[in-house]
């Protein structure tokens, strides 16, 4: 139980600190704004610094602009008829105190078509796996089951997204596919190569389907903590870079000159720069895992019109085509409007995926019944039993 009384004095202290931090953050944002404008004015100089040789020793991921830094993408009109497909997943992770080591992934599936009166598809698809199956691809000992399940969940989401896109194709209207979260699968960087390849192969297969059917796909990130553009500004600020010689091997300053900007998230850079429905220039993403991708991934920021700057991650075949870019920008904005701040298709995919407490108990009850039927030993650990019912 939470003792609120004991908490209250700590709350007062923490809230004071938070208020101070907020003020500092506002000042930093304003400063970052000026730095960004300066970088835009000296874009040639910055671009010379953003080459692989120059960046070899930079310890953070740095975005590279592919459109002028002062570019602002005007809002675009959404097609009068369009479909959107989206998926989101949730899971019941294996619990060693529970009766069995199975895990379940539940994928919420959405296909909405606008302007035609066609019936929406909104349902969920569960996938039951044995825990052991998780470790087959991963040779790295000690990798947490939760991380591996997150990967399996992502693949299940992508696979269902591809199936929905196929259904949307039959409806015959322009369609956009929304992925909940990043296209850049940076958490995989920690995994062994064989596992990375297994996951990415399957991911690319689904992405290729979408491309073959000409269904532009974006990763939608709300409240993103990406700082690649912020890091680009740090490169701009660095006094030790020389325009004509190799970059400094290490920063001699303490603290480094560029740290005055930090902490700063990319999205904070656009709060004042973008009006409703406008997007930032495109940047090339630079995560290490992208070296394994057959195509580059780009990102831009969109003012969703509800006081939020969303990050969109976009594969090259969409980003390189102005018509497709206009389409994803319009649909991402329209979806956020319809969802009052967050794309309605992603929000509803989440709602479809949610596993409620009662569903969870029912899931374990069903498994117990099946196991008993097969005369297998069924036991819940004492710890779990005590957690469920206290004694007085």
């Amino acid at each position, binding site marked *: 139980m939470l003792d609120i009384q004991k908490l209250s004095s700590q709350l007062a202290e923490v809230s004071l600190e938070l208020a101070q931090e907020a003020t500092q953050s506002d000042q930093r944002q304003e400063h970052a704004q000026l730095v960004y404008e300066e970088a835009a004015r000296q874009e040639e100089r910055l671009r010379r610094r953003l080459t692989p040789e120059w960046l070899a020793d930079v310890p953070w991921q740095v975005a590279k602009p592919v459109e002028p830094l002062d570019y602002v993408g005007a809002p675009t009109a959404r097609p009068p008829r369009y479909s959107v497909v989206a998926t989101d997943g949730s899971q019941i992770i294996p619990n060693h105190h529970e009766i069995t080591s199975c895990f379940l992934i539940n994928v919420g599936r*959405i296909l*909405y078509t*606008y*302007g035609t*009166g066609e019936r*929406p598809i*909104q349902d969920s698809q569960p996938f039951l796996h044995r825990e052991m199956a998780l470790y087959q691809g991963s040779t790295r000992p000690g990798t947490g089951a939760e991380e591996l399940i997150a990967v399996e969940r992502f693949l299940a989401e992508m696979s269902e997204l591809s199936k929905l896109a196929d259904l949307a194709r039959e409806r015959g209207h322009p369609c956009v596919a929304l992925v909940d979260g990043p296209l850049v699968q940076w958490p995989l960087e920690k995994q062994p190569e064989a596992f990375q390849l297994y996951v990415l192969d399957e991911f690319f297969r689904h992405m290729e389907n979408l491309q073959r059917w000409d269904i532009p796909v974006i990763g939608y990130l709300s409240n993103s903590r990406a700082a690649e553009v912020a890091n680009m500004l740090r490169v701009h600020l660095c006094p030790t870079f020389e325009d004509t010689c190799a970059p400094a091997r290490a920063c001699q300053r303490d603290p480094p000159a560029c740290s005055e900007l930090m902490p700063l998230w990319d999205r904070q850079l656009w709060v004042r720069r973008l009006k409703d429905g406008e997007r930032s220039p495109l940047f090339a993403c630079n995560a290490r895992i992208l070296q394994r991708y057959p195509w580059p991934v780009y990102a831009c920021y969109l003012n969703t019109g509800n006081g939020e700057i969303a990050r969109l991650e976009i594969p090259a075949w969409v980003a390189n085509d102005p018509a497709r870019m206009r389409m994803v920008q319009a649909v991402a904005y329209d979806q956020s409007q*319809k969802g009052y701040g967050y794309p309605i298709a992603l929000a509803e995919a989440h709602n479809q995926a949610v596993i409620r407490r009662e569903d969870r108990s029912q899931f374990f009850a069903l498994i117990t019944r099946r196991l008993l039927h097969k005369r297998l030993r069924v036991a819940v650990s004492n710890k779990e039993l005590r957690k469920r019912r206290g004694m007085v």
Partner: protein
Amino acid sequence: MKKVEATAAVRWGEVVAGSTTMVEVQCFPADDGRLTLPLPPPFGSFVRSVSEETGIDIFAVVYEVLTGSMDSTHRPTAMNMSRQELREHQPQIFDLLRTDVSCLIVGYRQGGRLYQYFPPHPPQIHDFVYACPTAEVMAFTDRLDFLRTLIKATGVPTDELVPACLRHAGAVRAFDRSFMVAAGKELSSLLKDDYDRLMAMLRRLRP
């Protein structure tokens, strides 16, 4: 819901809760795939549930209709949009809402015979429910013993329900005078101790 015809019964819902005295029915969405909210049978009209397992058809009268969220996640919220705008911009809401209809059991049919008292078994969950076509309403309301069940029901807007139900029974007979007089007499006998209530119901009998 399609127009109720004289002979064909329209299947509009499914039993989601049933007891000896009442049945709760969830409406099906429009079967032509249109984005619209289900239109339940009107207040006071006759419906029939069909139980394949017990072989009993149960007759009931609609007394309450409730539309709300399908689950605990969604809450109906004003969107300031016309029906057409909702279809255009928020097509998902139609499937996220459900309409439940509560009906009071007034009798049953077994082996081709009609009975105007409670059935031996309640309706079963997932039994289909039909709107009674004209012929069935006429056959069932040939006797008026079921009025006592309606009038004695508790937690039900009886003073509105009884006249509404009799208006439906009258309508299938083109408000035939002798039927309406018989209904009035039955009511006055049932409500001989409550003149005000009787008059309130009689006034509501007019089509």
